[in-house]
């Protein structure tokens, strides 16, 4: 069902207090039919979105709150800009069938100008919903050794990446493994290989000698076969995966928001992929 954005408050020079006041104000808002909107949250969803990923991120996030009611914090780093925190606070509301009420999610867009882009955790921490898991979606290739990455991963329970967005796989997996102890990882590229892994598992002990597909997915599959079964396969480039359930990016992300613990099989596959 189509969602409706309800404007709240925006300021080019915001403080956390003002953002919290704006969120509180929206909470008291009277919704459709004179009844308060319904709020249910299952997590805080943060997304770190560099400029080149803004369009794709907006498309993926549209409607995600309907599946996973949450507070969404969108961080747009603008290190080239002046020192400022710009914020927009609004509600994304979804009509509930057979109910006058709407289900509303809080969305906070934060533009971190200048040095603020290097200290995001101090902005994120006071805005996290208490006692709920924190998922961090990092668009593009994470800058693993930077302040912003290490700070954000320290406050997140789970980091969601899509290594298909990285230009330097499989080498980049070597950097990733240093953070396996710090947070649980979801890799959407790994999720994309699930139908293929299921097919290979069902055909075992039949072993493939070559696999063809996009670089990240084939590297992870090869790493998986290596780490699980000691099987070495040749990799070839192809635009399509041999087995694909053709799920939209938003659905793949939505599925990862249901996963909580560490995925030891993925970690071993990524480590093996880094050594290919």
């Amino acid at each position, binding site marked *: 069902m189509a969602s409706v954005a309800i404007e709240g408050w925006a300021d080019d020079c915001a403080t956390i207090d003002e953002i919290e006041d704006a969120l509180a104000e929206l909470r008291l808002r009277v919704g459709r039919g004179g009844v308060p909107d*319904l709020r*249910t949250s*299952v997590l805080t969803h943060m997304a770190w979105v560099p400029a080149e990923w803004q369009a794709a991120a907006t498309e993926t996030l549209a409607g995600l709150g*309907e*599946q996973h*009611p949450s507070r969404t914090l969108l961080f747009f780093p603008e290190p080239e800009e002046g020192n400022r925190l710009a914020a927009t606070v609004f509600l994304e509301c*979804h009509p*509930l*069938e*057979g*109910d006058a*009420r709407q*289900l509303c999610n809080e969305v906070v867009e934060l533009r971190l100008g200048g040095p603020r882009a290097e200290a995001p955790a101090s902005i994120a921490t006071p805005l996290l919903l208490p006692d709920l898991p924190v998922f961090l979606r990092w668009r593009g290739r994470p800058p693993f050794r930077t302040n912003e990455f290490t700070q954000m991963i320290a406050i997140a329970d789970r980091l969601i990446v899509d290594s298909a967005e990285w230009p330097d796989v499989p080498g980049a997996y070597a950097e990733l493994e240093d953070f396996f102890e710090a947070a649980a990882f979801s890799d959407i590229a790994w999720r994309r290989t*699930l139908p293929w*892994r*299921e097919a*290979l*598992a*069902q055909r*075992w*002990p039949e072993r493939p000698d070559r696999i063809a597909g996009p670089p990240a997915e084939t590297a992870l599959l090869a790493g*998986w*076969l290596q780490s*699980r*079964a000691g099987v070495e396969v040749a990799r070839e480039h192809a635009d399509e995966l041999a087995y694909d359930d053709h799920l939209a990016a938003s659905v793949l992300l939505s599925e990862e928001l249901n996963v909580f613990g560490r*995925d*030891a*099989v*993925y970690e071993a596959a990524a480590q093996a992929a880094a050594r290919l």
Partner: protein
Amino acid sequence: MDTQSVETENPLLEGLRLRRTPEPCVLAIFGASGDLTRRKIFPALYSLAVRKLLPEEFGVVGIARTAHTTEEFVAAMEAAVREFARDEFRSDVWDRLASGTRYVTTDFADESGQDEVVMCLNDLDAHAGTRGNRLYYLAVPPTAMPTLVQELGERRTTTGWVRLIVEKPFGRDLASARELNQILASHFTEAEVFRIDHYLGKETVQNLLALRFANGIFEPIWNRQFIDHVQITVAESIGIEGRAGYYEQAGAIRDIFQNHLLQLVALTAMEPPIDFDAESVRNEKVKVLRALSTPNPRFVVRGQYGRGFIEGVEVPGYREEPVVTSDSTTETFVAARLFVDNWRWADTPFYVRTGKRLARRDTTIAIQFKRAPHPPFEDIDTLRSNVLFVHVQPNEGVSLAIGAKVPGEGMRVRNVHMDFLYGGTFRTGLPDAYERLILDTMLGDQTLFTRADEIEEQWSLVDAVVAAWARERPNFLNYAAGTWGPAAAQELVEWHR
């Protein structure tokens, strides 16, 4: 081969939860011309097909006395799917399901009819690759059930597996239920028999188990020490909807009380099972049913609705319904005070009620906790007990009534509800109960189905109530349509207070 040994041999299985796809099979629906097939079974099959949860090699055979061709049956089911399925109609999905669908006109009572069904099933094996696996859905009247079971048993082959879904009513008393269990047992193993109670397939009913056994805060207080009483309501605002023939034989006690209501009592009162295995769950449920004491007739209220108003529209009384006689003594309402005689629940009343033409459609389990022992406030008369409401339908969810301070001077406390609305949190759309139950049957999972001994315990209680009723003529009509039933039912709970 068990899962563990497969995993040991297959290193690629680690971390994969392979989708549970049923084995190839044919679903043969006996009584396929009925409303259940149109409103529930085919829409459920379609939703399973949309989600790719049906096996690749799958077929459906509709079997009924009503004369139809396969083409007519398929067209009727397509219309039903368009009207009742929860998913948008997709031609590609439907065409695939329809291509494996057949219809046979027979009452299955004669050799030629049986032969025709067998030929049709064999044909699907040959052309759809269903490998002799049979899922028989018995949606036929109770009188037809024994013969059908016997014929199916005698004609079973050694190829593939056989499972039976047996629709309610399962008998009409303890003797007939036992007889049917015996007939089933003489041809099929208990693992092949799936007695359906669609309430168990409802997400919110299963959520009761999640609520109780996944939350550490509830189980310690889920007992006689903290709970004052439990109220379970299965209320319908509809009447008998043209089913007078059936309802006159069943009444509210056989239609709802014996199955849905007692299942809700069992799930509310059961001990934590050691796992979610079918036998573990059903063992605990049957212990509750065994512990239910026969209610004192003074604490059982039956009723029959008279003329009244539903949503502002005048509706006829039960005795004015077509086919129902003007002196019918069939009850359309039952309320009872039950006790579960065990360590956890001794002396804790379970007030249960069900009825037709009540004020609204509502299935709720209300757990009323004991009052705070010594509230240090002046205005304690307005203080009410905490109540945990499990809303099974509609507005599926859970509410907790708590006392909260009214803002302002002094210390006035008012009751407020904290709501968890199921559809507001999990927005994936609740599957229909039949989707879950048909899929579970294909997978051979009996957790959400009723076992033979459970059914017999339920009937044993119902027989005792009915025997007491036989000794006196009821004082009908005793409630108006659109109300909450006879005043005596309300007095049951008030007497407790």
